[in-house]
């Protein structure tokens, strides 16, 4: 099959995880009402998760049949191409930001995230990152808090 695209690093494991998750959800869907009635609350969940499981099985078969991009070093390639250090570190920053939103409040956590994120990703000038993050946060605060009247996390620590 010369036209088949190569299998990307981690793709087979991802397909397998999706299939396992689909089967688990299908079992959960069955436990809602079983096959008590064809119009019960569990029928559509069973149809949806059953479809997921069937499609997941087909995808797994298709993925397994494709040749990998590289025969060896799949883990190293996965870490380098799918979750490169920059993406992994930035994702960790996002998780920290989301966790800090409630205790630290919107202003403090968002400023810290914007400044750190821009300094980390843009890597030109810290002063520029500081000015842009402060100015954009001020604008976001004014527009969303005062114009759109959106309630933002106030923070428990400050």
């Amino acid at each position, binding site marked *: 099959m010369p036209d088949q695209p190569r299998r990307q690093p981690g793709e087979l494991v991802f397909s397998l995880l999706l299939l396992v998750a689909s089967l688990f959800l299908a079992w959960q869907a069955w436990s809602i009402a079983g096959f008590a009635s064809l*119009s019960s609350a569990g029928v*559509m969940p069973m149809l949806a998760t059953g479809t997921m499981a069937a499609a997941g099985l087909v995808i797994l078969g298709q993925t397994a049949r494709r040749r990998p991009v590289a025969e060896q070093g799949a883990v190293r390639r996965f870490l380098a191409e799918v979750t490169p250090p920059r993406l992994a570190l930035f994702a960790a920053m996002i998780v920290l930001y*989301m966790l800090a939103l409630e205790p630290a409040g919107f202003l403090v956590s968002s400023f810290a995230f914007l400044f750190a994120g*821009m300094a980390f*990703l843009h890597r030109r000038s810290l002063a520029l990152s500081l000015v842009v993050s402060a100015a954009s946060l001020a604008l976001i605060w004014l527009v969303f808090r005062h114009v759109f009247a959106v309630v933002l*996390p106030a923070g428990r620590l400050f």
Partner: protein
Amino acid sequence: MEQTALWFLMAWLDPGLLLMVAAGTFAGIYIGAIPGLSVTMAVSILISFTFKWPVDDALALIAGIFVGGVYGGARSAILLNIPGAPSAVATAFDGYPLAQRGEAGRAIGVATVMSVVGGLMGVLALALAAPVIARFALLVAPRDYLLLAMIGILLVGSLAGKSLARGIFAGALGVTIGMVGLDPMTAEGRFTFGSLSLMGGIPYVAAMIGFFGVAEALYQLRHLDLEPVKQRVGSLLPDWRVVKKLLPLSLRTGAIGVVIGALPGTGGDIAALMAYDHAKRTVKEPTSPFGEGAYEGLVAPESANNAAVGGAYIPMLTLGIPGDAVTAVIIGALYIHGLKPGPLLMVETPHLFWFTVGSLTLANLCLLVFGLTGIRIFTKLVECPKGILIPLILVLSAVGTYAIQNNPVDIYWMLGFGILGYFMKVYDYPVAPVILGVILGPLMDVSYRRAMISARDDPLTFASEFVTAPISLGLTLFLLAIILGQTPLWSKLRGR
């Protein structure tokens, strides 16, 4: 008639609504043009802020952003060879060579005028066709809604992605997410795992922002180091002789855009590619060879993708079925405002329909003004580095998700969906069917159960109604044709 005209002119006569449409169109142009920001992402985030607004204000703003955003993608396609939106992919084929030839300003001018022509055609089609389709839609039975929803999800899945199985998986995943919470008919818990916070379901705005905002932002990190190409742009006024010469092509491709946009599940991106293909096949003597800066190759996709906007509103307002990913998100907005898109929307709230038609018309006129001006500030903003843009997108995503119910759990959902969406994008799973599934899942559930209850839980009676009722039979055949068309069997048959 007089009442209809007043509803149509509401956005034109009320300064506040006029401002909403104009601001939406202006913002949409920039959102659509800046690589990394998409109209779907913007509308998803915007919905979370506008749900407390009067529905007219929210609809006016969204109409402006939709129209501006679809056009805005063309500007970055011409200037940077990076389509700002999926619907501008075909625009880059000839737009960028035109810019390289030093005709960026004229190309943007022609693209603007033809986008407006296409956009107005779409609105006209919406105004003429929707009332007729809505009357017809009153005859549609619950099982037909089930079929229409399945067609919508399948079309988005099969056309947006490379594999039917992945499209089906994504759609089914969305339907499953849409099932989480208490069953509205029996109050039984579904996928709640005994958690109180899951009883109310997963807010689809969190899913939308996660899959379209966070996932896209993470995906953009893989191409952070690409430096944008800078272009010098002259006057934006088009050569009116070129416009006059290309008007027939614009009208033809605008018609293609309307039809493709009106099909559930197909949007501006497919319309633009089909229109480009049509132009390539029918224009014998283009201004330059296609792919090397032909104005025909610019006009066709731009007329079609803007015409598809009006087309996409047709199934959304008449059947409650989204025409594409953006209208799927707009349906979410209508539900948030307590409205139920579908045949009854036009019966119960006709003013909203004509107000939408008026807002879309106004947005197209605003597009003409904003599209032909303000290029200097535009080129500066479009070159905004992604390293600055991505953290801002994430802050806006967090604010938008939190604003819905002031619940931090929603932010964790958004993040989870964002990470899942990132891996799905990396491994070529389309994410648009997930959102369609989330929104249409409850409609499918209710439609299926109503149809089954009316068949007294008899599977044979239930199945026979799909082939004995004419509308159901047509839709069933269409659904089967979509599935068959994506299988290797069809490829083999075509090969013979």
